[in-house]
């Protein structure tokens, strides 16, 4: 048979082109499974399978909040029983692992948000599992070989990308499944992230106790075991998740107003982040997080300094706040479906500001139980702020690229995570150094947090519905 020239090219060139087009056998199996079309739910699929799928991922990646249990054991990886000066890592060096992971969370969510929306939740969740669990394995090798750069690369850089991908992957999917209760939907997923520390921290301690021996602190083995366990859980989430078919809506529910699923309300991410509404919501999240994280990060020490309790009681206080941080995410976010997003944020900010201003009085009057109750409510609203923001974004920008928009907004969290604890640290340390009693050293910080929340309330009140000129319309171009 005579070769047929194609547009003047010879047979060999054509054969070469054919070769490049033929897919690898593995690719032909895997790619369709990961495609957005493969994730569309079949008829009769229960939408109540999606929240546990999302929680499976968030409970795993939320482990980062419990990373502090590894700090001290990492500082004696060589000495095992006690740190060896000059050979072992120091606490400030180890502290960078957590900071790099959180910075990468924000950056990857911002940069990869559009990719997540395009590829769908299954692909994004599997990528998240690969990065997070792969990062844990790299960190395990880094600890085993005592190479700090490898731990930074593994847990911090690669694992941090897994955090960002996993954080935003299921959020927009859940809002599409629950257009009637978007606050509940996002609350369920983001509650998982808050709950991740409640599992990760004790699991880490149990495993380190199990693996600890004369030649090892057990950290490397714990990281490797956690990678295996978490990959199973995250895999379950990725396999289970589905997106609703186009035009699907819950039985008996009709879209109305800004909550409409209509494409006319959709706004692209590149347009959204140029609007004042995006930056006002960015400020709302940043101020809410700054105020909450400042107290959450220093909870144990603050309780010890203000009430003279011992470290065990202080740690118990921090654990209690973690429960309220998790619970607030589902309770307050669900409530926002009834009250509306702007109203609930006004409540977070105004009640939060009043409660912060009350804290110094609880210390002066020795009301420890009241102090615990007040901080628990404050932290529940901090968690609620995290969980409600995706639904707020959806109300303003629609569901079209809400995952990507949420990803860019998360940079506010990264910034606040750096500023909040520094504010508390700097002010309280400066006052202690000036000779002010430890118990009163935190008072100005608490009043400052109260002021930040009032500023957040102003930003929230300035959020107005988006001008229709930003909407995509039927053309689909931002």
């Amino acid at each position, binding site marked *: 048979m005579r070769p047929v020239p194609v547009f003047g090219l010879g047979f060999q060139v054509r054969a070469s082109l054919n070769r490049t087009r033929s897919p690898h056998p593995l690719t032909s199996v895997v790619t369709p499974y990961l495609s957005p079309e493969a994730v569309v739910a079949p008829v009769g699929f*229960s939408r109540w399978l999606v929240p546990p799928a999302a929680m*499976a991922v968030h409970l795993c990646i939320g482990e980062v909040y419990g990373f502090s249990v590894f700090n001290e054991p990492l500082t004696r990886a060589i000495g095992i029983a006690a740190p060896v000066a000059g050979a072992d890592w120091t606490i400030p060096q180890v502290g960078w692992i957590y900071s790099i992971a959180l910075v990468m969370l924000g950056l990857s969510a911002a940069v990869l948000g559009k990719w997540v929306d395009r590829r769908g939740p299954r692909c994004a969740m599997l990528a998240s599992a690969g990065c997070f669990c792969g990062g844990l394995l790299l960190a395990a090798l880094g600890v085993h070989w005592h190479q700090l750069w490898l731990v930074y690369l593994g847990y911090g850089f690669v694992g941090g990308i897994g955090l960002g991908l996993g954080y935003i992957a299921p959020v927009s999917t859940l809002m599409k499944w629950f257009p009637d209760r978007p606050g509940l939907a996002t609350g369920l997923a983001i509650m998982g992230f808050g709950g991740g520390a*409640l599992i990760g921290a*004790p699991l880490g301690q149990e495993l380190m106790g199990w693996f600890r021996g004369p030649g090892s602190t057990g950290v490397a083995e714990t990281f490797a075991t956690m990678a295996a366990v978490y990959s199973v859980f995250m895999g379950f989430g990725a396999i289970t998740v589905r997106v609703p078919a186009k035009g699907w809506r819950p039985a008996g529910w009709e879209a109305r107003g800004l909550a409409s699923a209509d494409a006319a309300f959709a706004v692209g991410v590149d347009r959204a982040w140029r609007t004042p509404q995006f930056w006002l919501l960015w400020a709302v999240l940043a101020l809410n997080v700054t105020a909450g994280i400042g107290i959450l990060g220093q909870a144990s020490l603050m309780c010890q300094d203000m009430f003279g309790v011992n470290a065990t009681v202080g740690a*118990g206080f921090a654990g209690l706040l973690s*429960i309220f941080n998790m619970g607030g995410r589902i309770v307050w976010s669900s409530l926002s479906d009834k009250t509306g997003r702007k109203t609930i944020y006004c409540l977070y900010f105004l009640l939060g500001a009043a409660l912060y201003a009350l804290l110094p009085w609880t210390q*002066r009057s020795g009301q420890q139980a009241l102090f615990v109750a007040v901080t628990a409510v404050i932290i529940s609203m901090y968690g609620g702020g995290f969980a409600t923001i995706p639904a707020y974004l959806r109300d303003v920008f629609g569901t079209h690229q809400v995952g990507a928009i949420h990803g860019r907004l998360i940079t506010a969290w990264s910034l606040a995570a750096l500023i909040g604890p520094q504010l508390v640290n700097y002010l309280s340390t400066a006052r202690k150094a000036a000779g002010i009693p430890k*118990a009163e050293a935190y008072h100005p910080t608490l009043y400052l947090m109260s002021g930040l929340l009032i500023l957040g309330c102003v930003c929230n009140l300035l959020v107005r519905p988006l001008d229709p000129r930003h909407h995509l319309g039927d053309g689909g171009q931002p």
Partner: protein
Amino acid sequence: MKTIRVLVAWMLVAIPLGWGVTRSIQKALPLFKTTASSPSQPAIKS
């Protein structure tokens, strides 16, 4: 069958989360066994 699948999925996430919450509550119990006292100002005696 669909209900069982949903139940199993929820249990898969609820069991580890319940374990974590229980552990945290156990850890927080000493907080409620401590007598309130302020280091800068003694508690008011009745």
